């Protein structure tokens, strides 16, 4: 078991979410930066879909009740195990009773902790993820929360010493496919979206990232009849300030979506902090 000595600013259990229930109003949820969780799981020999811990802005301390192989990925933080400095992106051995301390990330926002065997909380609708929008899954971690380990399915031998993660950028280009409702906006709005940059506002969470920049003006009024929303959708409320939907986004909505962030670039958005900027780069909708 793992005892949460301190969860840091915000920490949850996350796996790859609960796809397949959007038509019942259930957000997909799952790791906001899914490639980082997958990598952390590979580093400890877990199936990529095993549940780990998603830290927001680091600052956590975890005590391990049993011997454990763990790995950290995502936003790079200073890390020590029982006051021995250790690193990111590599399997780390924690002896029984050991405490892992994670500092504040130098860059990026979300850090993932995988443990061999996975976090074994009870799944809800097939997933162990905390859904911050709907409250499905385990509650956010608090001091004193105890998490069982195990249940991730068969683990493989650990064959990797370390892994390389791409650099984190506080001003990344982010590919976006325009539509499905780009025609609800003026040509100037679409041009403004391309011209960028947009700055990340303080209102960010697992549901979405609110952006500041040139307001995106609509070519028509009213609301769209409620329609399905997809991961990475850039939804524009009447104030013209776009919101990029992350893992816990609502399944349906009535504000027009001017574009959808390319799947490969969504983790870049999930790692942005307030004050960071991004440049939207429109790309064709079909993968080449």
């Amino acid at each position: 078991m793992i005892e949460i000595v301190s969860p840091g600013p915000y920490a949850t259990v996350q796996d790859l979410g609960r796809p397949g229930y959007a038509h019942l109003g259930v957000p997909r949820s799952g790791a906001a930066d899914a490639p980082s969780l997958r990598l952390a799981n590979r580093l400890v020999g877990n199936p990529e879909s095993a549940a780990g811990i998603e830290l927001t802005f680091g600052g956590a301390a975890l005590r391990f009740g049993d011997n454990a192989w763990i790995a950290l990925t995502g936003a790079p933080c200073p890390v020590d195990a029982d006051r021995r400095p250790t690193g990111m992106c590599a399997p780390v051995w924690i002896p029984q009773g050991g405490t892992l301390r994670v500092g504040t990330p130098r860059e990026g926002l979300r850090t993932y902790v995988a443990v061999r065997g996975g976090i074994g909380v009870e799944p809800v609708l097939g997933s162990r993820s905390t859904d911050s929008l709907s409250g499905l899954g385990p509650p956010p971690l608090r001091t004193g929360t105890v998490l069982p380990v195990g249940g991730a399915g068969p683990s493989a031998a650990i064959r990797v010493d370390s892994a390389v993660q791409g650099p984190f950028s506080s001003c990344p280009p982010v590919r976006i496919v325009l539509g499905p409702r780009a025609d609800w906006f003026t040509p100037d709005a679409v041009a403004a979206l391309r011209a960028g940059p947009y700055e990340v506002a303080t209102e960010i969470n697992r549901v979405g990232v609110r952006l500041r920049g040139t307001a995106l003006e609509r070519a028509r009024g009213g609301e769209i009849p409620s329609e399905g929303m997809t991961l990475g959708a850039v939804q524009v409320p009447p104030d013209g300030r776009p919101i990029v939907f992350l893992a816990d986004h609502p399944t349906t909505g009535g504000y027009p979506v001017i574009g959808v962030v390319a799947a490969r670039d969504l983790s870049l958005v999930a790692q942005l902090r307030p004050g960071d900027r991004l440049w939207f780069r429109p790309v064709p909708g079909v993968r080449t």
Partner: protein
Amino acid sequence: MTIRRAGEQALLVETGSLEAAHRLDALLRADRPEHVEEIVPGQETVLVVAPDADQERLESRLAGLLASVTDAGPARDETGTAARIVEIPVVYDGDDLDSVAALTGLTVAEVIALHAGSEFVVGWLGFAPGFAYLIGLDPRLHAPRLDAPRTSVPPGSVAIAGPYSAVYPSASPGGWRLLGRTDVRVWDVAADPPTKLPPGTRVRFLP
């Protein structure tokens, strides 16, 4: 009637009507194309999420299905969804009966009679897991949401807002006007399926 790209991994099919959206939804569920992960009906759309599919092939398949559901006419229903009806007993003692009566110029008894006298259909779900937007509210009962939403609405609350009615599936904040409550559990994550009210289900409230 068009099919729009919603990013690299999803297509938004405009069906032009809720009925056609439900027919397309039912066809896709009965014979799910390869790699389709989510099928999400909306008011006049169906969102099809398929991260690993060949989007162009999927689009041409959807175009064929779309033509068949929009040509079919309202009477045709080969999917059987229209046969399913859920009856929900309601105790009409909600905190907003009086405000709805005042806003609509009806008596409380008339409000109850109109709500219980209508047949609804589940249009789509959203807002919260299991929260079904019920279409078919008598236009005389259309009333705006509360100015200030309640911080917590108990599960089983039967409510209306604008052209919709709903049964709150779980405790949540809410700005809809409460007409009453039911003991029917419309949402249970331990059940399969977890909802009694998937899109297309017909619903009647029993006073």
